[in-house]
C-alpha cells in the first residue's frame, strides 16, 4: 500500500453486503475495509463466491453496501441517492466487463461515444474524443465496425476505449480477460498497464488468472466475504493456500 500521506481516493470501512433475509441470508461482504490510493493498480482475487465481484460493484457504485462506509474522494457514497451514484459513475468511473457489454448493432465509435452523451458533450467534441480513445487502444480505422464484426480482443479494446473516453479517475475491470485467449489477454493487460502510465489511472481489476493479476502492483485476496490478504503483489505463487494465513494445503 503506497503511503503518500494524501487522503486515499477510495476508502472502504467495514463494508457488509447482505443478500436475502433470515435463513436465506448471504453475507457477500462481511466487514471489508481497505483503501485505494490514486494511481494504484489493484488486483482482487479469490475463489468463486468470495465476494470479489460484489466488492467491485460496491466500489463501482453499482451496488450499495448494507452497512459500513464508502468514501470516494472523501464523500460518503453510502449516503448518495441512485441518481447521485449515476453521476459519480459518469464523471469518475469507467467499467470494463468480462462479457465486453458493448451495445449490439451499434458501431465502435457510437459505443465509445455513449458515456460522453450522458456527460452532455456536444457532437463535435464527442466524436473527437471518441476517435481519440479508439486510436489510443489501437483501433484506428475500425470506428464504423459493429461489435459483431470485431474479434473478442478488439471488442474488449472498444470497451476499454469506452471506459476511458469520459476521462475517469478509476477504471474498474471485472475479469477483463476472462473471455479471451492467453495471447490476446496479455495484449489487453499490456494496454491497461500502458494506459495507466500515460493517464495516471487508478485501476481495480477482479480476476482469477494469476498471469493477469501479476500486472497489478497490489493484491487483495478475498475469502468468504472477508479480506484474507492485502499487500504488494508477492513474488511467490498466487494460490488460495499461500494467501490465507494459517491454512495449509
Amino acid at each position: 500500500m503506497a503511503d503518500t500521506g494524501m487522503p486515499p481516493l477510495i476508502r472502504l470501512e467495514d463494508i457488509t453486503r447482505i443478500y436475502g433475509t433470515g435463513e436465506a441470508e448471504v453475507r457477500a461482504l462481511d466487514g471489508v475495509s481497505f483503501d485505494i490510493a490514486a494511481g494504484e493498480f489493484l488486483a482482487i482475487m479469490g475463489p468463486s463466491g468470495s465476494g470479489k465481484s460484489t466488492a467491485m460493484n460496491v466500489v463501482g457504485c453499482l451496488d450499495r453496501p448494507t452497512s459500513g462506509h464508502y468514501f470516494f474522494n472523501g464523500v460518503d457514497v453510502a449516503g448518495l441517492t441512485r441518481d447521485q451514484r449515476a453521476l459519480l459513475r459518469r464523471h469518475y468511473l469507467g467499467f470494463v466487463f468480462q462479457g465486453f457489454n458493448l451495445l449490439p448493432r451499434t458501431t465502435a465509435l457510437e459505443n465509445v461515444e455513449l458515456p460522453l452523451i450522458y456527460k452532455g458533450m456536444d457532437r463535435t467534441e464527442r466524436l473527437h474524443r471518441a476517435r481519440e480513445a479508439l486510436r489510443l487502444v489501437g483501433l484506428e480505422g475500425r470506428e464504423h465496425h459493429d461489435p459483431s464484426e470485431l474479434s473478442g480482443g478488439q471488442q474488449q479494446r472498444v470497451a476499454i476505449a469506452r471506459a476511458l473516453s469520459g476521462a475517469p479517475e478509476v477504471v474498474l475491470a471485472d475479469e477483463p480477460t476472462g473471455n479471451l485467449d492467453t495471447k490476446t489477454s496479455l495484449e489487453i493487460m499490456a494496454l491497461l498497464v500502458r494506459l495507466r502510465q500515460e493517464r495516471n489511472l487508478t485501476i481495480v481489476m477482479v480476476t482469477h488468472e494469476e498471469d493477469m493479476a501479476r500486472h497489478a502492483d497490489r493484491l487483495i485476496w478475498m475469502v468468504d466475504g472477508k479480506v484474507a490478504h492485502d499487500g504488494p503483489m508477492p513474488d511467490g505463487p498466487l494460490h488460495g493456500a499461500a494467501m490465507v494465513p494459517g491454512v495449509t494445503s
Partner: protein
Amino acid sequence: MIWEALKLAVKAIFRNTLRSFLTVLGIVIGVAAVIAMVTVGQGSSDRVTADVESLGTNVLIVQPGKDAMGPRRDGGQARPFGLKDVETILTEMPEVETAAPIGSRTLTAVFGNENHATQVLGTDNRYLRATDWPVVMGRGFTESEERSGKAVCILGETVRTELFGFADPVGETIRLGTLSCDVIGVLEAKGASSFGSDQDEIVVMPIRAFQRRVAGNTNVSMIFVAVRDGFSTDDVKLEMEFLLREMRRIGPEEEDDFSVMDMKQLASMLTGINNVLTGLLSAVAAVSLLVGGIGIMNIMLVSVTERTREIGIRLAVGAQGGQVLMQFLVEAVVLSLLGGVLGSILGLALAAVGAQMLSVPFTPDPLVVLMAFAFSALVGVVFGFFPARRAARLDPIEALRHQ
C-alpha cells in the same frame, strides 16, 4: 439530450420495422377513423347549411305546434292552419313578399305498368316562384286550377323518369293513390339534398286539390313565407309571431301553439343532429386509439425486457433513471406519433373518398388533424410511461447480468 433520445428512438423503431408497424396499426386505425368521421361530418354539416341557405335567407317557415321540427310535445294536437291564414298574412304584412301553403303526403304514383312511391306536395305557383323552381316542360298551374282544386299535377324529374322513361308525360294521366291526375308539367331537376334524399322525388298539385282529394281536410301543415328584400328576417319573424297570436286568439299568459322558424334556426337544428352523430361515431373511433395505446404499452414492455442489458450498460456509464425513462418515453411517443401521421394520411384519404361518395364537400380541418396528433402523442406518453418507468428502475447489476 432530447435530440439524442429522438435519434435513438427512430433507430430502435426502424430496427424492427414490421413489428413497429403492427404496433402502431391500432393508432393508425383510430386516428384515421376519427379524422375521416369528423371531416365527412363537417362536410355534410356544411352541405346542410348551404342547402338550407339556398332556400333563401329570407325564408320563414310557419308550422302549428310549438316545436315544429322536434318531437311534438302536444302530440300533434295543435290547431292547424288554414288557407285563410295564408291570405291574412299576405294582406296584414306588407313586408312579406310571398306566402304559400304546403301540405304533403307519401303516395304511390302509377302510370301504365310503372308505379313509384313518391312525395305528393299540395301548394301553389307561389311556392314554385319563391323557391325559384321553374317548370321546364309543359306549364305551371292556372289560376282557375288553383282556385277550383282541379286534379292536375307537375312531376319532379325523378318521378317523370321512373314513370315515363323518355316519353313526354305532359297530357297523360297518372294515378296518385286513388286519385287520377292530369300531368301538366315537369319541374327542373334539383338533385339530392343534404340528407341524400332526392328532391326531384316529388309530385306537386294545387293545395285545394290536395286538401280535398288526398288529405280529406282543409288543413295547411306548413306556411312558406318569403320576406321582401330590405326587411330584417328577425323583425318580420317577431311581427309574424304577434300577428299569429292575435289571429289564433292566444292570451297573454299562454304559450304559442305554433312556431316560426328562419333558415338559420333550421340549419343549426339540422347540423346539430349531424354534429351529435359525428361526435358519437368519433367517440367509438377514439376507442381504437385506446386499444392502440395498449398495443404500444405491450410492445414497449417487450422492448424493455429485450434491451435490459442495454439499459444496464447505459446505467453503468452514468445514465440517470430519468434519462433512461426519457429514452423509452420518447420512443413510445415517436411510435404513436408515427401512427398519428400514417393515420392522418389514411383518414384524409378516406374522408376524400367518403365525401365524394356522399357528395358532400371535402373540407379537411387542420385543427382536427392537429388534435389527432396531440391525442396520439398523449397516448404515447400515457401508455409509454409504465414501461419506461420499469426500464428506469432496473437494478444496474441485474440488468448487466441479464442474458
